[in-house]
């Protein structure tokens, strides 16, 4: 399919884009932190893939290249909007999206959930981009350190360090476990607080 797409066969190219689109969007959504920017970044990434495909030389795995394109598109989108890490768009669409996701996320065992999706998005947006991208690539896509290094163009050791620091920052930004022996207690926001947030 890839070879056919590179030759410009439209059906193959379309199938390729459809196959990759969910992962591209997922990366963009997590990095940008909101639906609107994620959609813009996803569109940019798809266009970049179409334009760049003839130049793809196979030195890296195709998926790695796609993730690089998606990550760059998402980072570009964040920078283009001039957002600082703490800035979070909280549109109606985003809240609805988060609520849908939260309903799914809380389905198994709510008592053990340390956070909800809204919190997670906000915490992610507080992470510097240098930390956010590797954490997303590792924990969302499950890429190994070497793949992430290839995607981001940084050494694997740097990837490991940034993921470690990024996760630590996320853990600090989200509700913390109470220190001491009572490790099972969490200071997470209650659902009432969350309901208030949604008006």
């Amino acid at each position, binding site marked *: 399919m890839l070879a056919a797409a590179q030759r*410009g066969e439209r059906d193959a190219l379309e199938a390729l884009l459809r196959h990759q689109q969910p992962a591209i*969007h*997922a990366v963009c959504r997590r990095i940008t932190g909101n639906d609107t920017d994620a959609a813009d970044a996803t569109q940019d990434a798809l266009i970049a893939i179409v334009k760049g495909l003839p130049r793809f030389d196979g030195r890296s795995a195709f998926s790695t290249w796609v993730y*690089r394109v998606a990550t760059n598109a998402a980072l570009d989108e964040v920078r283009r909007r001039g957002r600082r890490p703490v800035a979070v768009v909280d549109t109606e669409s985003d809240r609805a999206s988060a609520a849908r996701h939260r309903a799914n996320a809380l389905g198994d065992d709510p008592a053990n959930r340390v956070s909800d999706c809204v919190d997670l998005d906000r915490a992610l947006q507080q992470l510097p981009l240098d930390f956010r991208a590797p954490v997303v690539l590792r924990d969302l896509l499950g890429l190994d350190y070497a793949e992430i290094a290839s995607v981001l163009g940084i050494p694997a050791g740097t990837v490991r360090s940034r993921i470690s620091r990024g996760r630590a920052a996320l853990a600090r930004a989200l509700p913390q476990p109470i220190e001491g022996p009572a490790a099972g207690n*969490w200071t997470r926001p209650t659902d009432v607080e969350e309901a208030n947030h949604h008006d």
Partner: protein
Amino acid sequence: MTEPTPPLDVDALVDALVEDTASPGERERMANDPALCARVEHTRGLRAQLAEPPPELDPAIVNRMISTALSATDAGAEPTRAAPTRWLVAAALVLIVALGAVTVPRLAANRTSSNTASSVASTTGTDAASAPSGADAGTESDPTAGPLEATAPASATTMAFLGEAPADEVLLDRARALLTNPPAFSDRATAAAGASVAPTDERCRSVVPTGAILTIIGSGSVQGEERIIFVTATAGEAETIWIIEPTACTVTRQTFR
């Protein structure tokens, strides 16, 4: 208070435990340390949430996106023809950058900080052809104008130089200023539309050798496609221009003295 080891070590330990790469001794330590155990579980919970893909896009939106992306192939030339065109334009860019790199540091040095401050506020794209360029009168005789006209289609190429970088913050200020009000190398040199520079921008930085001293960073576009521009200096005083396509980090470069 409950963690006797330095924070960074604990971060690494938590990561090792979360990633299941911890040694038996480290696992035993977790088993004996409720706070550490709680933190590991907390991080595992975060990972589990991050692993869940966000809601998918509406199929109609996906269809529209893919259709738009596919139309990019219709709008562009065939790959076999597009490549030489890009290289021609890139070659023109190299000429501009090479001569500009010689003249801009002098111009940048003459720019006052007030010029920088007043330009930072402007983030929308401007066309230097319509903007006053009184500060750049010296570039009117720029010899790059001739060759550029011969190789680059009008308005196809935009270029912005960001000046030398004595310090990060200074670089950023100067970058924004020069992107919104670039020196006029020729009538082809215009501001990069919507240009901005972020301190964390490391895209494609890895293609530049780590030993090189980064002196100038900029951005521009070739036929609407973004390019990142690095200018590096080495100990031998040779300078290298790096024009980089940011999607795949493909490089066009030229070294000169």
